[in-house]
Structure formats: C-alpha cells, structure tokens
C-alpha cells in the first residue's frame, strides 16, 4: 500500500478544513472571544497538521503545526486575538492552500518553506511570553507528580481488546525480540467514527502514524482483514516502541475520522514471560496516567477534543446533508494536469432512485418487445400505452440524472466573504458581504465556471461601486458599504444577483468616455438611452475607473464576465441608479445538457431552437412585411419586429411558396425581439445537446447539435446570437 491512493481523501478534506478555517477566522475577527469558534479553529488546524504529517508533507505539517500552536495559546486564553494576528493567520491559510493546490497538481508539496510566515507566527507566540514549550513541560511536571499513586489504577485500567489478540509464531517472535531489545510494549484499541467512509484507509493512516514512532507487532483483526475493511468500528493492535505511549496516542488521534483511541502497556502472557519488563511497564502506565492527568488539568485541553470529536459526526452529517452531493470544494484549476480526477459525491438515495428507474426501463423495454411480438392486430393501443410508460420513465430518469449532477453554489461562494474582507483591508474601505441562497443548486459544470465571473463582479462592486467612507457619510449612507450576493431559482433558471449600495454607474461619465474613445460619436452617445450606454461597459477594454487599481479597472473584467456567462448560455443584466447602487443580475439555465426545443424545417433541413428563447409563433402574410432602412420588419400588435430570413442565414433555399403565409418564430433576448422566418414547424421536443467539436464551432449562431430519434443530426440555432 502506498499513500497516493488516499490523496483524494486528503485533498478533499484539506480543502474542507481550509474553507472551514477561513470562515472561522473571519468569524473570529468579528467576535474574538467566542470559545466555540476558537475550538473549531483549533480542531481544524490540528486535523490538518495530522493529515499533512501522515501523508508525508513535511513543509505543510511544519506550517500547520506553528499555526496550531498559536490557536492553542488563544484557546487557553494566553493570547488575545487582534487584527495583526488575523492577518498573519490569513496569510498562513493562503500558504497552506498553495501547498494543497501544488499537491493536487503535482502530488508534491513543492519547496516553498514559507519561512516569513512561520517567523511571524512564532513572533506572535514569543511576544506573549508563554511559549508552548514551557506550557508543555509544566503539564508534564504536574502529571508526573500525580503519576505515582495513579499508576496502579492505570495498570488496572489497562488490559482490553488487545489482550485477546492471538499471536502466531512470527508475531510471538517479534514480540519477544522487542522485549529483548528493551522496547516498551503497548496495546491500543482504535475506534473509528461511525460515519467513516473508508475505514480501511483510516486504519492504514493509523498504521502509518504509529510506524513513525514504533512498530506494529500484531493486530486484531488481522492486517489483511483490516485492509479489506473486514472490521466493525474498532480494531486493536500491539505496538513496540522506544518512545512514549502519549506520542503514539496523539499520532493516532491526529488521523481524522478516528473517534477515539485507548492505549495501555501490553501485559497478558508477555508480562509473565518477562518479569524484567515490569518496571518498564509501570513507567508506561505512568505515561498513560500522565495523559489522563493532563486531560483533567487543562480543562480545555485534550479531553474536550474527544468530546468534540464525538460531536463532530452529527455536525458533519448535517453539513453533508446540506451539501448533498458536493465535492468539498470545486477545484478551481482545470488547467495543467491535476493529480486527481474531478468527482461528484453522490447521495446513495439519488443512486437508488436511478437504479429503480433503470429497472423500470428494462421492464418497459420487455413489455414493448412482448407487445411487438404478440398478435399484430391488437397491438395499436397496447403499443401506445407502452410508449407512454416508457416516456414517463425516461423523463423521470432524466430528472434523476440531472439531480446527481446538481451541486449547491455554496462550494464557490463560500470563499467570497474572505475575499471581501481582504479587499476591505487593502482599500481601507469598510464593507460587508451579505449572502443568501448559497444552497441553490446548479449543474456541476456551471458551478465550476461561475466562480470567476462572480469574483470579478464582486471586486467590481467593492472597488468601483462602493464609495470611500467619507463620501458615504457625506451622502447620509452608513459608513460601511454593503454588497449583497443573492441566489435563487426562478423556473428553469437560477438567478444570481450581485448588488451594492454604492455610487451606481455614472452614465454621463460612460458617455464621455465612449466619445473620447471613439466608440460612439457625440450624436450617437446622446441619442443612446442609458441601458445602451451601460451595455458599453461589457465591451472589451472599456473601463471607467479613473485610476487603475490592483483590483480592477484594467479593462478586463466585465467583458470577460459577459462572455463567460454567455458561454454558459446565461445572460447578464445591469440595473443602476446614480448615487444609490448597482445590481448585476445573472440568469443561468439549470442545466446545459438537455433542453426543450422547438423543431423547425428550413429548406428541407431540420433545426432546433431552444424554447426558452422563443416568445410566440406567428403566421404572417407576406404583404404585411414592411421595409425600414432596407431591413424587413413586421408590425406585430403595435411592436415593430425585424425579420430574419433563416433560409438566407443558413445558406439554403426556402421550399415554401413565396405567396403563402410565413411561419415566424418570435425570439426574445432581454427586451429585444426578432422574427425568425422558417418553412415549417415540427413541434416541441426534448433534445440532448451535443458539442460539435472545435473544428466547426466558428459558426456563431449554431450552438451545438442534437441527435434525433431516427439517428439524424439536427443543428441547434442559438436565437440569442442572431438578435
């Protein structure tokens, strides 16, 4: 066995813990005294350290260790949280994140020692006097004082599952060898958490942790059985070591998802065989007791950790439920070659329902077969019935598969509070981020892509949108600016709104800029209404920020946002009021893979148009077509709508008699309408979108292809690109 197979777990968990730490430290900044937050942080830091150590990432371990020391002091009330410290902690978290990213890409932690951060962490510790080393030795003293009397008790408490381990010859020999070598022998029983997913993996990590300081002589059940996960929630081992029991216990506890570990000197037959070992063992017992004494002495120390660990499963379970099938954190770097595959954690229930549907599908298929082979005369109605049944099964199947692909946007938005905090510090602008609807679910592919555009928009709001505090006070606004990120589902779409209560967009400034840049003539600029002017902001390299800052204002941003959102078949919309704020609204389809479409015929060829972009379908008499500015338009109930001859656009020839009424599909994009002239309508159909590959994607208004029931390929017309 080698550790690499646990890399996935390690990465997933590290990211989870890092996110947890980020959120907690953020909370800590707001509420520096909150004991719950502090222990939460300590726990996460401790686990992170243990995991890094077990996986052999020494640099990451060193850094997390120093960070844990700081948290440990904070928890014991020896250090007060202050702004400077939080800053260092955040930098430290960033550094750890860097390690994790490097590990993900290369399976190696890289060679950045992050010494400056380690120095700063140590400086924090030294400044406050009580160095952790001093604390530790103090603990030891009290413990050893108490040890004498407690030793017997310790010994009697010892003896447990490990005593019943049956040793084979080899193990017996190893045991004797260890005794000859004057090594200490301990029995351990490790309890795995109930909701542990990969018990064998955990057990392996435990073995590895132990082997750092000692040797495993025997296990119960056998090592092979443990590797095969043939054990309940606990397993026992006999360990020989030159070190202390404490060290081993700590090492084992640092493995995550281990609920508890009990340990005591190993006695049993071995004890009688080697009486000389007795004093040694007693010393060992003292060690155990020492640990116990330490537990009772520092009320907040090790003992609570245990309770907390026990508490964790519920909490974790809750979270899991909330996150449903979330892979802890969406990996943000598809570039390069990640060392692990992208995965979606799937709820068993969702899989069960999929399984059920597939079995129904098989039943439906069988019924169809039997209907087809039975007497032909009576098959008409029976066949229809079967087809209806098949239809309902496939619709449900589609929905279930969709749900498996859905993940909450929480995985991407949870990093934003931290980002806003950093921006706030950097710009010296007090601001707050309020988020709602983090549980809103979107297709995994969309969630992965949405992070960057959202980040751009938030930065934009923070940098350009919000005014400096003096200005805000002068305007009678609260000094602290607010940015809102709201997500909610609206029909077949998910809407994400980024709103700020800042200055709003100065359309006059944009107008002047447009003229200055030669994008528009003066006349055009003043003839254009505000929404057209605002749309200019989405053009490449058009930034109104007077000063180019580190954050935004380099002209990359909104145009990138727009193209990214549109690539996801979404829309961006801006509403703004000068002096009151700006709202960016992103509208995204729930899923990309399957859509409802209207099938049409143009020049004898079949095409699909997404139903979501269609407003109505009209029959228009060719005589009602007017020409305005040499463009064909129709007047539909008072609205003038430009006509697009699809046969011309698609480079084919209409097979319809020019004198007949035209079939016009009225497509809608935002406030704009256009009439697509087609030959014939086939009807509404659910279609699966297939990519056409890179060679042929230069045609802008063809967004993909789909395969029809008869195996023929039909192209999908993107009506948005035509308008």
């Amino acid at each position, binding site marked *: 066995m080698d550790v690499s197979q646990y890399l996935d777990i390690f990465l997933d968990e590290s990211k989870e813990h890092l996110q947890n730490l980020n959120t907690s430290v953020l909370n800590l900044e707001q509420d520096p005294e909150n004991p719950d937050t502090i222990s939460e942080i300590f726990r996460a830091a401790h686990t992170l350290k243990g995991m890094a150590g077990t996986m052999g990432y020494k640099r990451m371990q060193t850094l997390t260790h120093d960070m844990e020391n700081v948290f440990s002091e904070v928890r014991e009330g020896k250090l007060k949280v202050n702004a400077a410290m939080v800053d260092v902690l955040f930098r430290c978290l960033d550094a750890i994140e860097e390690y994790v990213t490097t590990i993900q890409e290369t399976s190696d932690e890289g060679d950045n020692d992050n010494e400056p951060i380690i120095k700063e962490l140590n400086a924090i510790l030294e400044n406050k006097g009580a160095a952790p080393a001093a604390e530790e030795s103090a603990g030891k003293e009290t413990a050893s004082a108490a040890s004498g009397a407690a030793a017997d008790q310790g010994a009697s408490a010892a003896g447990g599952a490990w005593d019943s381990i049956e040793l084979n010859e080899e193990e017996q020999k190893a045991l004797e060898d260890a005794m000859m070598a004057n090594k200490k022998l301990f029995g351990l029983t490790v309890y795995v958490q109930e909701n542990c997913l990969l018990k064998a993996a955990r057990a392996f990590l435990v073995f590895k942790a132990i082997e750092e300081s000692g040797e495993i002589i025997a296990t119960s059940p056998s090592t092979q059985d443990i590797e095969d996960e043939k054990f309940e929630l606990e397993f026992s081992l006999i360990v020989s070591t030159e070190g202390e029991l404490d060290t081993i216990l700590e090492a084992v506890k640092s493995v995550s998802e281990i609920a508890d570990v009990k340990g005591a000197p190993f006695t049993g037959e071995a004890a009688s065989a080697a009486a000389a070992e007795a004093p040694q063992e007693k010393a060992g017992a003292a060690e155990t007791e020492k640990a116990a004494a330490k537990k009772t002495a520092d009320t907040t120390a090790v003992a609570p950790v245990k309770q907390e660990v026990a508490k964790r499963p519920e909490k974790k379970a809750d979270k899991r439920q909330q996150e449903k099938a979330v892979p802890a954190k969406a990996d943000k770097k598809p570039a390069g070659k990640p060392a692990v595959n992208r995965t979606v954690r799937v709820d068993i229930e969702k899989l069960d329902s999929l399984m059920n549907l597939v079995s129904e599908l098989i039943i439906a298929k069988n019924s169809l077969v039997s209907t087809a082979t039975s007497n032909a005369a009576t098959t008409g109605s029976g066949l229809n019935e079967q087809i209806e049944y098949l239809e309902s099964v496939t619709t449900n199947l589609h929905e279930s598969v969709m749900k498996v692909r859905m993940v909450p946007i929480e995985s991407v938005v949870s990093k934003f509070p931290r980002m806003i905090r950093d921006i706030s510090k950097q710009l010296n602008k007090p601001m707050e981020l309020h988020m709602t609807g983090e549980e809103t679910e979107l297709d995994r592919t969309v969630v992965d892509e949405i992070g960057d555009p959202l980040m751009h928009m938030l930065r934009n709001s923070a940098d350009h949108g919000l005014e400096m505090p003096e200005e805000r006070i002068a305007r009678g606004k609260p000094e602290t600016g607010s940015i809102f990120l709201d997500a909610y589902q609206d029909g077949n779409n998910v809407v994400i709104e980024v709103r700020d209560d800042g200055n709003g967009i100065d359309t006059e400034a944009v107008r002047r800029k447009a003229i200055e840049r030669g994008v528009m003539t003066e006349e055009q600029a003043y003839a254009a209404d505000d929404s057209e002017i605002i749309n200019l902001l989405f053009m490449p390299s058009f930034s109104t920020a007077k000063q180019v800052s580190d954050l935004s204002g380099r002209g990359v941003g909104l145009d990138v946002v727009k193209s990214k959102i549109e690539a996801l078949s979404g829309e961006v919309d801006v509403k703004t009021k000068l002096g009151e704020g700006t709202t960016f609204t992103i509208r995204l389809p729930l899923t990309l893979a399957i859509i409802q479409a209207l099938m049409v015929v143009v020049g004898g*060829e079949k095409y699909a148009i997404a139903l979501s972009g269609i407003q109505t379908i009209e029959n228009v008499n060719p005589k009602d077509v007017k020409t305005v500015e040499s463009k064909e338009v129709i007047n539909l109930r008072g609205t003038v709508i430009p006509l697009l001859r699809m046969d011309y*656009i*698609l*480079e*084919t020839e209409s097979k319809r008699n020019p004198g007949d009424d035209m079939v016009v599909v009225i497509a809608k994009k935002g406030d704009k309408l256009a009439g697509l002239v087609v030959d014939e309508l086939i009807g509404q159909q659910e279609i699966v979108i*297939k*990519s*056409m*590959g*890179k*060679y*042929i994607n*230069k*045609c802008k208004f*063809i967004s*993909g*292809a789909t*395969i029809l029931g008869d*195996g*023929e*390929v*039909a*192209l999908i017309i993107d009506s948005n690109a035509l308008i």
Partner: protein
Amino acid sequence: MANELSTNVNEIVQYIVIRIGDEQYGIDIKYIDNIVRMQQITRVPQVPGYFKGVINLRGEVLPVLSLRVKMGLNQDEITKDTRIIIIKMDQHEPIGVMVDSVKEVVNLSSAEIERVGFESREDRGAYAMGIGKHEDGLITLLDMDLVLQGL
C-alpha cells in the same frame, strides 16, 4: 510526423490505402479509429467548403472533412464505395475524413518509403510525408497532423 520515418531503418508501418480520384494515398493505421460507410451528413452553414457537415457516430456528433476539397480537387461524387474514415489523433479532436474508396491495408518498411522534402510539396502533395512503393503502384503517404492542422 515526418521524422518518425527516419527513426528505424527496418521499421514496418501499416497503412490503409485509400483512393481519391486516380491516386492512391496511405494513412497510418494507428490514427484510424473506424471506417464507416457513407451516411446522412447534416450540412453546417458558414463553414469552409471542405467541411461536408456533421454525422452521428454512435451517439457522438463528428465533423466530416472532404479530403478531395481540402486538396483542392473538385467536389466529391458520392458512390457506393465512398467511405468516411474516423481519425483519432492525440493532438486533434476526432474527425471523419471522406474518401472515394478504401482499398487495402499494406505493410511498408522504411526501405520502401521515399521521403518527400519540403521543397517538392505542392498541390496534392502538400500533405505528403513520403511516397511508398508497393507492388506496382505508388502510394502518397499522408501526414495527417499536417492535414488537420489549422482546420
């Protein structure tokens, strides 16, 4: 690629021999995923003329390239011998290549191949990486990487 030819003197490479017009061409068999009969091709508007459109290959949509048009010859005449060769190369997306017919598979050793220098590459020879001599005929060996580059 061209330099693969010079690596080993006795290396034997299998080529699929195809016919375009009156000429024989060879495609390295390792790039060929499948050969399918002519089937319904869906035309795609506003793409270069050498793209015939897209086909449905077992549920995947694949573009189809006309080797004739790409080499500057006149449009394909679809016959019962017309085949679409599905090419899969690591550095390119899968694509179907339409040819007049598929003849046979030949083994060519390096000794039977004459390399073509850049200077002699012109017109239909533009995608050649060598000329193979097989029995009585000559086979122009196609550098598929060069064919698919810049599509």
